[in-house]
């Protein structure tokens, strides 16, 4: 199974962003998707660093793709989406707007924010040129298995969300701005203070969600360590690891060792929790009653 690094979902400084991808060149991953997924206002801060990052990663032997924006409403965002086509690397479509600009016959990949819930959607995307699809995180293992089988017939690689805070919702409204009594247009980039999102708790203090500008994430970090055998049996070809601000290189290494049989799921999850003692894990979308559930506590 391959490891893919998904696009960073958070707003990091350009230097932090560039250093992250420099480090990633040495990580044991096969593929890196980069670019701005969540908010078009962030892109100008690191846009000029993207070509160097692509070049570094390609030199290190990684496959590289550029993500499209998750929700495209403004003229400027449509232009940004259209311009992705000319960047010289594959586009990961995370909103069908990007497909509108992609010439018929151009190969592309599909990210987890496009709704691919069934064989019909998968077959249509394959006919349009999709070669790889990262499935929406909310799909249960039964659906994943059906789609992985269909993907094999259609020559589409099926990838699954493997690690990281889950992208649960995207909105026209910026919640970071709202929290500071600002509007999105005058957000003053409040989200830059939270490199892994801002923890959102219930009134009883229960950890629940994480706020990231216009995006809402899970509090828990998805972790499929205990599902690796089932995913492999199902024919899933890649796992997606989603960037976090600390210890991400170690996370990549742990999943590689797990896939290579050098570490057990328990060793991997213990090590992940040692990187961040407050991290809560989940794999409930695959096998639990609810997305937040964690099978590790049952084993």
């Amino acid at each position, binding site marked *: 199974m391959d490891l893919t690094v998904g696009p960073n979902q958070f707003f990091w400084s350009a230097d932090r962003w560039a250093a992250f991808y420099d480090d990633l060149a040495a990580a044991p991953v096969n593929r890196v998707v980069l670019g701005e997924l969540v908010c078009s206002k962030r892109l100008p801060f690191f846009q000029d660093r993207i070509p160097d990052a692509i070049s570094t990663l390609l030199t290190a032997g990684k496959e590289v793709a550029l993500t499209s924006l998750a929700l495209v409403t403004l003229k400027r965002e449509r232009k940004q989406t259209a311009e992705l086509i000319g960047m010289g690397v594959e586009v990961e479509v995370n*909103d069908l*707007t990007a497909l*509108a600009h992609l010439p018929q016959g151009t190969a592309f990949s599909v990210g987890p924010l496009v709704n691919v819930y069934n064989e019909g959607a998968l077959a249509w995307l394959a006919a349009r040129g999709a070669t790889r699809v990262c499935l929406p995180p*909310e799909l249960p293992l039964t659906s994943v298995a059906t789609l992985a089988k269909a993907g094999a017939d259609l020559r589409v690689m099926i990838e699954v969300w493997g690690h990281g805070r889950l992208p649960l919702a995207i909105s*026209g409204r910026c919640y970071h701005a*709202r929290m500071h009594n600002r509007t999105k247009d005058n957000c003053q980039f409040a989200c830059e203070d939270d490199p892994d999102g801002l923890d959102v708790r219930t009134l009883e203090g229960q950890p629940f969600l994480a706020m990231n500008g216009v995006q809402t994430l899970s509090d828990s970090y998805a972790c499929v360590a205990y599902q690796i055998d089932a995913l492999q049996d199902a024919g899933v070809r890649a796992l997606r690891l989603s960037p976090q601000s600390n210890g991400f290189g170690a996370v990549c290494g742990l999943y590689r060792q797990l896939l290579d049989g050098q570490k057990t799921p328990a060793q991997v999850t213990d090590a992940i929790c040692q990187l961040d003692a407050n991290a809560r894990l989940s794999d409930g979308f695959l096998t639990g009653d609810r997305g937040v559930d964690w099978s590790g506590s049952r084993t």
Partner: protein
Amino acid sequence: MVMEIVCPAGTPAAMRAAVSAGAHTVYCGFADETNARNFPGLNFGRNEMREGIAFAHAHGSQVLIAINTFPRAGDEGPWHRAVADAQSCGANAVILADIGLLDYAARHHPDLRRHLSVQAAAANADMINFYADTFGVKRVVLPRVLSVPEIAAINAETAVETEVFVFGGLCVMAEGRCSLSSYATGLSPNMNGVCSPASHVDYHNDNGVLDARLGGYTIHRVQKDKPAPYPTLCKGCFSTTDKTGHLFEDPVSLNAEQLIPQLQKAGVTALKIEGRQRSRSYVAQVVRNFRAAVDALEAGQPMPEGMLARLSEGQAMTTGAYKKTWR
């Protein structure tokens, strides 16, 4: 041309009420997971649908059938049958969200008019035209993330008709792209046609304080003598290190009645009312009011004012994303 009022019907009785109250168009769904209001006791059996459509057509109203959840992998049959049955029941159009189902309907039922559901979250002209060119979509229900000037800009760039929500429940997140409910309860709008389902709600009473919980998470807390809002996830009360409150949205519902003239100028074809889970008397009252508003507009008369405030059940109203400051 007079703006089209598109009204919800969760039951045959509500459909008759909406038609009798002057609905130009009624939308509804089959009683299963194929539609995004899959609530117990709601929606239409096949015979009910056939009879309801015959009644609507006899009174000059049109019927749209929402088949707007995402078919289950390995089990697309119920969704395919819903499209076929919508055509044989005489529906004027189907409202679809899934690209696989749009492709299926375009190939197998090319004569059945296709509308793009709000659940597809098509929020710009490029994407809308793409759906029109690829799947022959004739109308798009716009996601609730756009301001009125943005809607006008879309209409200037597309021949696809636009339909916008004007009244009722309000999604804060882009529709069809939200897994908050399944994260907390296991049931989602996309897969099961439900959000924050009542089956996972409980109320907990302690020392004069009433907690409303969803999936075990406390979403609202009020003094026992105060009304407790339904614990819809995105309208709950939460805390960060700095602030406690309705971090995503207040417990409000949408009312854009006063924006109808602006929406008409923006080129909008149809005004949609949310609420297939509502009673027939509610539906009839909302329909009458909106019909009066568009008829007044067409006759060049002033809009009736504040006509629907009493129907909001004490909830606050918002014009949502139609005003840019909402963002």
